[in-house]
């Protein structure tokens, strides 16, 4: 007999779309996001007897989904062959001149927005998603794990099998690329 707060017969109608959207922005692949939702429900079904009711049914399902996403990144991290030595020159070094200061072309422009306010624009989220997809695989992995899944750098290094110095380079380059991509494609529309 499972916990009275659980209603497995309503999981699909109540949560499948929301979990799918949650997974999709994190893995950027619809088939994969579908698999993650399916695995989430299967794990929840198998584990329903261990649900104690400490959290709501909804947050319990999200936690399972989140763990499936981290598992996916962990497996993916092992398969990614880094395209070049991490300390070597790459595209993000182009943002800075020889003295490592911003080049005139790449210095952050004035966006003229309130940085305390979240944005509602659908267009923005479409562009953000496109920019996220353009990141190198490892940059995307560290960005999602750090900022969307709230893991700390040690957990991320362990999960992806990277050194902490690689981590700081990757997270910095991810932010450089995302910011520049948004300035180019959203601010300067």
């Amino acid at each position: 007999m499972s916990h009275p707060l659980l209603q497995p017969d309503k999981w699909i109608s109540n949560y499948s779309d929301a979990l799918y959207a949650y997974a999709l922005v994190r893995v950027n692949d619809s088939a994969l996001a579908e698999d993650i939702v399916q695995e989430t429900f299967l794990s929840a079904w198998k584990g329903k007897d261990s649900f104690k009711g400490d959290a709501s049914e909804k947050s319990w399902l999200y936690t399972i989904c989140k763990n499936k996403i981290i598992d996916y990144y962990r497996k993916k991290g092992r398969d990614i062959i880094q395209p070049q030595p991490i300390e070597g020159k790459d595209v993000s070094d182009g943002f800075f001149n020889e003295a490592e200061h911003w080049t005139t072309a790449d210095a952050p422009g004035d966006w003229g927005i309130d940085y305390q306010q979240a944005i509602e624009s659908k267009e923005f989220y479409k562009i953000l998603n496109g920019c996220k997809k353009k990141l190198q695989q490892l940059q995307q992995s560290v960005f999602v794990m750090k900022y969307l899944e709230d893991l700390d750098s040690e957990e991320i290094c362990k999960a992806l099998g990277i050194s902490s110095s690689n981590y700081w380079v990757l997270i910095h380059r991810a932010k450089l690329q995302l910011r520049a991509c948004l300035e180019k494609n959203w601010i300067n529309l």
Partner: protein
Amino acid sequence: MRFLNISCKKAGFLLSKKEENKLTWLEKIQLKGHISICSFCRRFEQQTGWIILNAKHAHTHSEATLSEETKTRLQNLFTD
């Protein structure tokens, strides 16, 4: 005092380390000094912070849904 001067590239690295309270006392002074005089790095900090704030909630703005076919298939997993 030259040891206090850092580049914009270095300041960017330190901003990520700052998020996890991993700066040494010297790095804290270097970063604070650099940000106070460099408007580009100030913008970089504000803009990346704002991007992250929005990225965290991107799924709530998504219109992506599963197809009815997929939902039926998933539902059947629990009724078989």
